[in-house]
């Protein structure tokens, strides 16, 4: 292999550059806006052509700023870059990069707006544009809302293309050859005579070149990685115990800590006695932190033991403390005063219901915990000059800002190193655990501190998915669903979580009705009203957010209405559905499941459909009513994402979403007594186990015009499809989750 090596390696800096990704006549323009944050920390011999590609003599580092919480975001981001950069992803190092406004999310804000994903009106387009502007201005460096692919699909391919073209320009300078005689291949620029120059050897030269901004992205027909089965970049590490999570960080001189705060949420600490704990082996300190205590020891288990040995005098929780009263508060909020939204109001619901034979139902869903398998954990080190934080988080810039406030330090001196997360499901959109570790560090400066929560602390200090009640009224006419009136009351996630991020929540909370108000059905009289229950225990986003429960309410009632009308639930949805990609999803799942075929005694089939995060998903579930309880036999899923970029991970995310939805629907709830969560570990919050796992067949459809993410949309239809299947098999209509309150499962 011929390698031209003539350039001496030296240190350098290159001009600032960033990207926007606008389209002009088929060519993507690379706009200079903002500062490439990688430039600040470049060492000798390193170059950063874009904020996403860093090269030095040792290798290529790809910056993947969206957090990987198990959904494969790091790997997907890397593949988007390398598709244009022309390197083997397995040869690159991946880094989360620093917390930076340049890594803003321009899509996540859309979910907070009352814009149906199916709408293409001027208003809808303006709203989506505003989300991008808002994301950029606020520097929303945030992972969530299944946005990684839609947000970064162009941006990262652009970054790869800009880096490639700039490296080619460097090769042109070095060889004197024109552009059209040079190609790239797997980390090399290839010369016409077959000689190759390694990218690494062009890094120094490239650093002095203005990034080539005028590049054309490849046609999908030229792709080598995208839409083909990819090998996730983390699969070997995660199968050999070599993946480092937040809980695994080890540093010289590191101490181990745990915290215990008032399990009666918000109750605070009146006082504590740590005399016994302080005498325990390995214990170095027992400290007071906000709302509780922290133990610092030389071993996590010793810290756990000592934390339990501290006698704490807890104050009472200021919130409505018992779940029966919490539900009563939700029930009481179906009032004019608490009305929050009515984004859907087609036809004349009131007139249509007047005098009609009513179908009425009330549905309830419980609080749910996130409980990622890696309990909240973080490593921090604070000195006079800087604060370093290593953890799995979806909100590095908010962490930076919030910890600046907490410590009084300059945000620029706070460095958030985002590590692989052992799951999240939305939990890592909160930084309460990080603040606790920083409070410890403020009392123990210059010492690296690893803080790990006991699982019990994790369960009892979650910000759960809120509980909710839906009241539904409907009427049929001439054997068809004619009137559908759904009212949903719940506490507001936006109000609760945005306040913790120091952001205002303006206007109605779309999450209260997401997955219900925005469904693509032409029902003659169709209304969805949201009611906001005054805040109770703090709540937050949980995988698929509002749709996680509203899918159950909307689709259970749709099933009830179809039965009342005496029509087939699939045929009726197809008749009512005006959105072509959604129709295709329904047709696909009908065909996959052989809908309508005979199942035999004690068996039943249920259908549900939810369009959430722009992704229409239809699920059919088959169950058998056995002597030991309900057995879930099969699940068929069709989902529309515009383009399936990695069929292997696509299937995994859909299957995982279905299992997440089913497991919680079967047997999970978080209930409170005196403000204390009663479920504190997995023995009372089981979810699904392998022996209960059905066969799950997945099909990805590509009829839509936009690319969508698939981390969350598989969740919402799972619970209603199961409840509808149980109805089909047993005749029993269950309107409250978890279903285990009403039936047994195998």
């Amino acid at each position, binding site marked *: 292999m011929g390698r031209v090596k003539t350039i001496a390696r030296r240190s350098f800096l290159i001009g600032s550059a960033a990207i926007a990704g606008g389209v002009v006549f088929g060519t993507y323009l690379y706009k200079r806006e903002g500062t490439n944050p990688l430039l600040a920390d470049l060492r000798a011999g390193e170059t950063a052509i874009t904020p996403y590609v860093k090269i030095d003599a040792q290798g290529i580092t790809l910056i993947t700023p969206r957090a990987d*919480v*198990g*959904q*494969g975001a790091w790997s997907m981001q890397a593949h988007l870059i390398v598709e244009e950069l022309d390197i083997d992803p397995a040869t690159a190092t991946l880094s989360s990069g620093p917390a930076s406004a340049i890594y803003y999310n321009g899509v996540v804000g859309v979910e907070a707006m009352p814009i149906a994903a199916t709408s293409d009106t001027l208003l809808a387009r303006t709203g989506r544009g505003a989300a991008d502007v808002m994301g950029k201005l606020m520097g929303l460096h945030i992972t969530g809302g299944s946005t990684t692919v839609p947000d970064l699909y162009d941006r990262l391919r652009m970054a790869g293309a800009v880096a490639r073209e700039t490296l080619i320009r460097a090769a042109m300078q070095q060889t004197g050859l024109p552009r059209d005689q040079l190609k790239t291949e797997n980390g090399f620029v290839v010369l016409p005579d077959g000689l190759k120059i390694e990218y690494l050897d062009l890094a120094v030269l490239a650093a002095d070149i203005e990034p080539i901004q005028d590049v054309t992205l490849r046609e999908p027909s030229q792709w080598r990685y995208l839409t083909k089965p990819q090998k*996730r970049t*983390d*699969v*070997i*590490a*995660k*199968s*050999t*115990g*070599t*993946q*480092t*999570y937040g*809980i695994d960080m*080890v540093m010289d001189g590191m101490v*181990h800590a745990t915290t215990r705060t008032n399990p009666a949420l918000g109750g605070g600490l009146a006082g504590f006695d740590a005399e016994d704990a302080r005498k325990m*082996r390995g214990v170095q300190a027992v400290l007071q932190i906000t709302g509780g205590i922290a133990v610092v020891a*030389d*071993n*996590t*288990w*010793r810290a*756990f033991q000592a934390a339990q040995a501290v006698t704490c005098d807890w104050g009472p929780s200021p919130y409505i403390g018992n779940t029966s009263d919490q539900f009563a508060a939700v029930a009481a909020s179906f009032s004019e005063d608490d009305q929050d939204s009515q984004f859907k109001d087609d036809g004349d619901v009131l007139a249509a219901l007047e005098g009609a034979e009513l179908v009425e139902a009330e549905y309830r869903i419980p609080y749910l915990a996130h*409980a*990622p*398998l*890696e*309990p909240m954990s973080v490593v921090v080190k604070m000195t006079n000059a800087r604060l370093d934080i290593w953890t799995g988080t979806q909100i590095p810039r908010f962490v930076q800002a919030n910890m600046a406030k907490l410590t009084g330090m300059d945000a620029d001196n706070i460095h958030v190193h985002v590590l*692989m997360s*052992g*799951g999240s499901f939305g939990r890592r959109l909160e930084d309460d655990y990080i603040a606790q570790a920083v409070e410890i560090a403020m009392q123990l400066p210059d010492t690296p501190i690893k803080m*790990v929560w*006991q*699982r019990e602390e994790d369960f009892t200090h979650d910000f759960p998915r809120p509980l909710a009640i839906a009241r539904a009224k409907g009427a049929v006419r001439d054997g068809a669903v004619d009137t559908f009136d759904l009212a949903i009351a719940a506490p507001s996630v936006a109000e609760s979580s945005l306040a913790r991020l120091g952001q205002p929540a303006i206007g109605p909370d779309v999450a209260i009705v997401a997955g219900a108000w925005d469904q693509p059905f032409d029902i003659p009289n169709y209304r969805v009203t949201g009611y906001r229950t005054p805040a109770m225990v703090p709540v937050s986003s949980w995988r698929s957010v509002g749709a996680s429960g509203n899918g159950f309410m909307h689709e259970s009632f749709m099933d009830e209405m179809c039965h009342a009308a005496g029509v087939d639930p699939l045929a009726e949805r197809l008749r009512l559905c005006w959105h072509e990609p959604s129709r295709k999803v329904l047709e696909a799942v009908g065909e996959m499941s052989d809908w309508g075929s005979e199942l035999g005694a004690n068996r039943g089939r249920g259908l549900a459909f939810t369009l959430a995060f722009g992704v229409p998903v239809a699920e059919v579930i088959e169950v058998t009513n056995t002597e030991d309880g309900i057995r879930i036999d099969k699940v068929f899923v069709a989902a529309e994402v515009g383009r399936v970029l990695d069929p*292997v*991970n696509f299937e*995994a*995310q859909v*299957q*995982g*979403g*279905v*299992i*997440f939805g089913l*497991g919680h629907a079967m047997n999970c709830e978080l209930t409170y007594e005196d403000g204390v969560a009663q479920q504190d*570990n*997995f*023995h009372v919050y089981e*979810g*699904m*186990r*392998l*022996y209960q*796992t059905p*066969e*799950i067949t997945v099909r990805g459809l590509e009829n839509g015009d936009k690319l969508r993410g698939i981390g969350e949309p598989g969740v919402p239809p799972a619970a209603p499809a199961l409840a509808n299947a149980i109805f089909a098999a047993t005749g029993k209509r269950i309107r409250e989750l978890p279903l285990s309150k009403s039936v047994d499962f195998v």
Partner: protein
Amino acid sequence: MKLTVNGETHEVDVEDDMPLLWVLRDELGITGTKYGCGIAQCGACTVHMDGIAVRSCQLAAGDVTGEITTIEGLGTPTALHAVQEAWIDLQVAQCGYCQAGQIMQAASFLDLNPDPTHAQIDAAMSGNLCRCGSYPRIRDAVKSASSKLKRA
């Protein structure tokens, strides 16, 4: 006390009742073995004692009577165990946090029962929780590893 982990003998000075999990993670710095629940509900902490899968959060250091193998000792990125190969081929891991435990459970199970039925796989693997829902691939990977091991 002396502990043999992945073929290496270590002298550790810990309480008899410290769970093996924390000896591994915090005393020996072997972090592939994970803490998930601490009460034998999740299986994330599964290791082998003399080849048999045990929950290291439940096994007190003083009760360790045999050689311990952790995920790092089962195979390495360059010398994979057949079960790890199957896990990689089928891309089982999502967040991956449970997978060390899943793999250790599967390896021990297949050692005892090289040709399991579907129902036996379900029974053997149901003590290992996966919050991400990678179960369909776990099932397939155990089957695939079983045929790999038979061919070997």
